[in-house]
C-alpha cells in the first residue's frame, strides 16, 4: 500500500471514529443537534454535553492512542525487538504507580494537576535506572526495564493491599486498566503538551532508527549518535507516555500491537512505521473507547479490557500471516 494512501485511510478512520464517539453517551442527542453544535451553533444543553463532556474524551482518545502507538513503534525500532512497548521499559507501570501514590496519600485531592504531575514524575523516575545502566546493549535496556516494571507493579499491588476503603480500591483499578470516563478539558490541557512533546521527540529519529537496522556499529558508521538517539527516545517516551497515563491510566497493548498491524502495509523500515503507528494507535484507542460505551454493563468497562478483546484476535491473525518473517 502506498504511504499517502495508508496515512490517508488511517486519518480518515480516526476522524470518522472521533465523530462517532461524539454521538455516544448516556444523554440521547440526535445527530442534527450534534451537527449543529459542531457547526458553531446548537442549543445550550447540546453544546455543554458535546463540547465539555464528549469532545475532551474524543480528543484524549486520539492523543493517548497516538502516543502509545508511536512509542511502541519507536521502541521496537530502537531496541530491534518486536516485543517492545512502553510497558516493557517501565514507563507506563511507573506512571501508573505515580498516579496511585498521589491517590493513596491524598495528594490528588489538593489540585487537579497533582495526580498527572505524579504520573509524569513516575515515568521520568523510571528512566533513571535505565540511563544509568544503558551504557550497553538494547538487551540490557530491556532487562533493566523489565525490572523497573516489576518494581512499579509491586508498588501498585502494595497500594491495593493497603487501600483504606473500597472506593480507593476501585479508583486504583482504574489506573491499572485505563479509562477515559468523565474527562474534561483540564485533562486535555494536561495531556496534550506532554504528548505533543513526546511525539516530536519520537518522530525526530526515524532515520536513525532505520540505520540501527544494521546494529549499533553499523548505525554509528552512518553518522548516527546512538547515545543521543537513546536519550531522545527515552525522554520522549517518559514525557509522552507519562502524560497519557496521567489522564487515561495504563492502557497496555496498544504500543505492542499497533506497529505489528501497520508494518506489513509499509516497507517495514522503522521510520515508515512511526507515523502510521501513531494514527493506528489513535484509531484503535478511540474504537476501544466506543466499544466501552456500547457494551451494556452496570459500570463502564475498562479500556484495557476492551482493547485486549478487540486487539488480540487481530494481532494473532497478523502474526499467523507473518510466520517465517520472525524466524
Amino acid at each position: 500500500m502506498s504511504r499517502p494512501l495508508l496515512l490517508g485511510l488511517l486519518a480518515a478512520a480516526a476522524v470518522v471514529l472521533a465523530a462517532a464517539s461524539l454521538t455516544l453517551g448516556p444523554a440521547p442527542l440526535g445527530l442534527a443537534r450534534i451537527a449543529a453544535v459542531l457547526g458553531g451553533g446548537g442549543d445550550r444543553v447540546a453544546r455543554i454535553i458535546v463540547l465539555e463532556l464528549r469532545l475532551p474524551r474524543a480528543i484524549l482518545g486520539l492523543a493517548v492512542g497516538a502516543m502509545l502507538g508511536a512509542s511502541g513503534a519507536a521502541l521496537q525500532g530502537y531496541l530491534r525487538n518486536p516485543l517492545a512497548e512502553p510497558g516493557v521499559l517501565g514507563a507506563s507501570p511507573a506512571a501508573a504507580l505515580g498516579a496511585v501514590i498521589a491517590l493513596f496519600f491524598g495528594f490528588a485531592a489538593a489540585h487537579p494537576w497533582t495526580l498527572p504531575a505524579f504520573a509524569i514524575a513516575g515515568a521520568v523516575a523510571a528512566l533513571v535506572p535505565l540511563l544509568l545502566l544503558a551504557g550497553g546493549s538494547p538487551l540490557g535496556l530491556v532487562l533493566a526495564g523489565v525490572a523497573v516494571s516489576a518494581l512499579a507493579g509491586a508498588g501498585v499491588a502494595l497500594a491495593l493491599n493497603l487501600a483504606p476503603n473500597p472506593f480507593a480500591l476501585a479508583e486504583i483499578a482504574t489506573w491499572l486498566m485505563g479509562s477515559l470516563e468523565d474527562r474534561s478539558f483540564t485533562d486535555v490541557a494536561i495531556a496534550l503538551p506532554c504528548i505533543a512533546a513526546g511525539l516530536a521527540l519520537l518522530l525526530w529519529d526515524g532515520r536513525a532508527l532505520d540505520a540501527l537496522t544494521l546494529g549499533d556499529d553499523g548505525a554509528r558508521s552512518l553518522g548516527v549518535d546512538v547515545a543521543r538517539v537513546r536519550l531522545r527516545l527515552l525522554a520522549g517516551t517518559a514525557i509522552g507516555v507519562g502524560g497519557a497515563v496521567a489522564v487515561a491510566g495504563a492502557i497496555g497493548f496498544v504500543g505492542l500491537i499497533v506497529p505489528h498491524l501497520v508494518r506489513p502495509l509499509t516497507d517495514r523500515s522503522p521510520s515508515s512505521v512511526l507515523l502510521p503507528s501513531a494514527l493506528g494507535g489513535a484509531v484503535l484507542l478511540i474504537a476501544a473507547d466506543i466499544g466501552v460505551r456500547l457494551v451494556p454493563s452496570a459500570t463502564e468497562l475498562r479500556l484495557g479490557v476492551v482493547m485486549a478483546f478487540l486487539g488480540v484476535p487481530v494481532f494473532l491473525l497478523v502474526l499467523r500471516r507473518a510466520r517465517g518473517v520472525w524466524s
Partner: protein
Amino acid sequence: MIRARGVGVDLGGRRVLDAVDVAVAAGELVAVLGPNGAGKSTLARVLAGVLVPGAGEVVVGEAAIGSLTPAERARRVAYLPQGGSPAWPLTVARLVGLGRLPHLAPFSRIGPGDAAAIHAAMARADVLALRDRTVTELSGGERARVLLARALAVQAPVLIADEPLAALDPGHALGVMTLLRTEAARGVAVVAVLHELTMAARFADRVVLLDCGRVVADGRPGTVLDAARLAAVYGIAAWHAVADGAPLLVPLRQVAGRATETP
C-alpha cells in the same frame, strides 16, 4: 588516505590494541590478518570511527577523525561490520539505500543521485536481481553481498570491511575479493579483515599481521606470510606454492612455536 597512529584500546580492562600504526593509501587493498582475539575487528572499528581509541588517533585525508562531524565521517569512511543480520525484514533495495543516509539533509527524500548510487552499488555487488527480495529470507552468501552493497552505496573514499568472506562459498568469496580489488582500482582505500590466508596473499597489495594487539608485520603478502611468522603467530605450518602467478597458502598442521597464547 587513512592512517592510524599509535592507537591503543582497552576493553574490559584488557589491552586489545597497543601502539598500532597502519596507513592505507587511496587505491590500495590492505588485508588485516591475525589469529582470533588479535584485535583485528577492534582495529576495523577504530578505523571506521565507531570506536574512539584510548590512545593515538586516526586521520582520514587531512582531518583527524574525531574532528569530523558524524555525518562527515560517515561520508568519508564506509564500514561493513562483522556478520551482521539486519534487524527488520526490509527489501534489498531499501537496505542498500541505508548507505545514503549520511548524504541526506534532514527530512529530505532520496534524490536521483542517491537512487543512481544505490543502483550502481547493487550492480557492482551483483545483487540487482535480488532488489525486491526480503533480506531476512536470503541465503548467507546473498545477504553478505547485499550488506557489502549497502557499504558501497555510501560511495566513501575509504572502505573498511570486517570479515566480508565469512559464510561465503568459494565462488562468492572470489567474487567479493574481486569486487574489493575493483573498488581499490577505482581509487578507494580498502581495508579488509580476513581469515583466509590465500585470499589475502592473492588479492591484497599489502598485509598487516596483528598478534596480541600489536602489528607484528606490515608489507607485501609474500614477504610477511613466511613460515616463521605463520608458526609464531598462527601456530601453523603451511604449504606454499604459486599458481597463476600468485601465492597459495594452505594450512597443513599445528606446530609448536606459537610464542604467546591469546585467551
